[in-house]
Every structure is written in structure tokens, then in C-alpha cells.
């Protein structure tokens, strides 16, 4: 909850939370994640959009004004979280300058108004922060346990090596990448790289 300041440099914040116990997924949103990060990021972004409408400002510009600046890192947010590093303005400018999106959108809206097309072009922008790579820290306490990950590597006298990472392979190249890292490290201690296996703990 206290990450709700998002990527913005907000000097003061006050947070009041009502908890509701429910056996149905709220808003018909399918189950995402135990932390509800998706919904939180959505809500933070939505608040900025609403503020932009109220101030009659471009939401992209409003975000840019309030982003934490590169020189402010490591930044302690008003609700107590430390943001270690970041360069929000550079990434934001990269996204905004890509392919001259706004020009394209205005052309399409003009064509729509002239009746030449029934398809509209929209631009969706977002910028959000998330806690990643935490490890066992007190901030991410789940029922008394910090977040953790595990990795067991066994090197046999023959040089063959077996690794059992806590992360499972999700068919996105985890097994290959882990095996490559092990092969590189194993080479130094003369383990047999061809015998290295990386397996997900749940497999």
C-alpha cells in the first residue's frame, strides 16, 4: 500500500485504507498476483489521468513534471521506501518520441471526422514502479516470511554439475540461460559443461 506514490516525487502523502473481505474477485478482474501489483499500478496511473483531466493538462506532460529526477536517486519516498536507481525522464522521452505518435493520431482523428475511416488510433501511456529482486527483506513480509529464492548446485567428483534453481522454466529461455551461466562458471573449475543440467524445482 505504501508504494502508492509510484514513480512521482510527491513530498507529502496520507494513506487511509479500508480492507474488505470478499470471496469474489473484485471488479471481475481475473486473478493476477498476490500483491495486486497490476491493479495498484492501474490505480496509480488512473489517478494521474484524472488529475490531468481536472487540471486540463496533457497527462504525459503532467507525469514528466512530477517524475523523480535522475539526480534524486537513491530516493526515499515520502512513505518510506527507498528507490535505488532510475532514469524515468529518458525512458519517457524515448517512448514519446517514437514514430511521432501524436502526429499520427491527429491525422487519424481528422480522417475520422472527415468520414474517411471508422478506425481510430489511440495512444496508451503508462509509467510505474515495482519492487523487484527483493530477496529476504523485512519490507516484503508474507505471513512472517521474507521473500526468498533458492539455488542448489551440486558438483560431483566426476565434474558433472546439477543445479536446481528455485525459479521454474516458463518456456522463456530460463533453462538455457541458467545452463549457460553454469557452463561459464563451471569452465573455471573444470566441471564438465556438457553434463550441466538446470531444472526447475517443481519439475
Amino acid at each position, binding site marked *: 500500500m505504501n508504494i502508492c506514490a509510484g514513480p512521482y516525487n510527491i513530498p507529502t502523502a496520507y494513506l487511509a485504507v479500508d480492507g474488505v473481505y470478499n470471496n469474489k474477485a473484485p471488479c471481475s*478482474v*481475473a486473478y*493476477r498476483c498476490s500483491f495486486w501489483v497490476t491493479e495498484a499500478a492501474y490505480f496509480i496511473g488512473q489517478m494521474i489521468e484524472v488529475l490531468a483531466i481536472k487540471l486540463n493538462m496533457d497527462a504525459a506532460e503532467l507525469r514528466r513534471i512530477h517524475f523523480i529526477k535522475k539526480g534524486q536517486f537513491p530516493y526515499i519516498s515520502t512513505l518510506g521506501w527507498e528507490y535505488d536507481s532510475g532514469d524515468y525522464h529518458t525512458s519517457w522521452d524515448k517512448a514519446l518520441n517514437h514514430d511521432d505518435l501524436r502526429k499520427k493520431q491527429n491525422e487519424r482523428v481528422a480522417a475520422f471526422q472527415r468520414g474517411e475511416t471508422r478506425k*481510430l488510433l489511440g495512444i496508451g501511456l503508462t509509467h510505474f514502479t515495482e519492487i523487484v*529482486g527483493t530477496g529476504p527483506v523485512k519490507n516484503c513480509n508474507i505471513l512472517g516470511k521474507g521473500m526468498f529464492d533458492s539455488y542448489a548446485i551440486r558438483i560431483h567428483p566426476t565434474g558433472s554439475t546439477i543445479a536446481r534453481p528455485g525459479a521454474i522454466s516458463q518456456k522463456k529461455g530460463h533453462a538455457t540461460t541458467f545452463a549457460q551461466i553454469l557452463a561459464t562458471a563451471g569452465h573455471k573449475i573444470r566441471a564438465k559443461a556438457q553434463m550441466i543440467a538446470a531444472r526447475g524445482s517443481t519439475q
Partner: protein
Amino acid sequence: MIIESQTYVGLTEALAIAMGQEIAYNEMGNVKTGTLMDFFLLTAWETPHYTTDHTTTPSPNHPIGAKGVGESPNGGAFRPFQTPCMMHSAPLDCVRRICPMITGEFGRSHQDGKNEL
């Protein structure tokens, strides 16, 4: 390689969240979408091509400056898939509307010709 895959798959999942994934209930409170057959999982047919880019800001708290990716792509990308739909339909009234856009209440209210969101 993992990071690129996480980004692509996360974007695809975010598109699915924004456009179709819904846990629907009937008036008795029973789940109507209990199986994966009722759940919108994007296939290669629905998935668009993404152009991705990145900036590099190493973490000072890690030996090689690494940070995690995990679920971040779908957590963040969910909004921008939805904003354009709102922008063009009812800029002020539908600010509170939540997903999904096609199969959910948003889609139904548009099909019925209602603009109450």
C-alpha cells in the same frame, strides 16, 4: 534472452487482461468462467508485433547491478492497452471503468447502445 521473453509475454498477457480476461459471476454468485476454455488466452493469431526499447539503470545494491523483471511487463502494460479505448468513447464518464474492454461490462454496454459506464 529471459528479459526479452518476459517483456513480450508480459505485454501479451497485459493485452489479454485489458481485452478479455474476466471472472464473471451469475446472480447467485457462482463463477461462470471456471475453466480455461472460458478464459481469454491470447494465441499467436491475436498477438500483435511489439516494438520494445529499454534504458539501463544498474542497481547500486547488486554485484552486477541486476534488477528483476518478473511480472512487471503485465503489471504496467495493462493500462496503456485500455486508455485508448477510453479516450475515444467517453473521456470523462468512463474514467472509473475497469477491464476487460471487449467481453466485460464496457463491451456489453457498447453493444447495447448504452453509454453508462
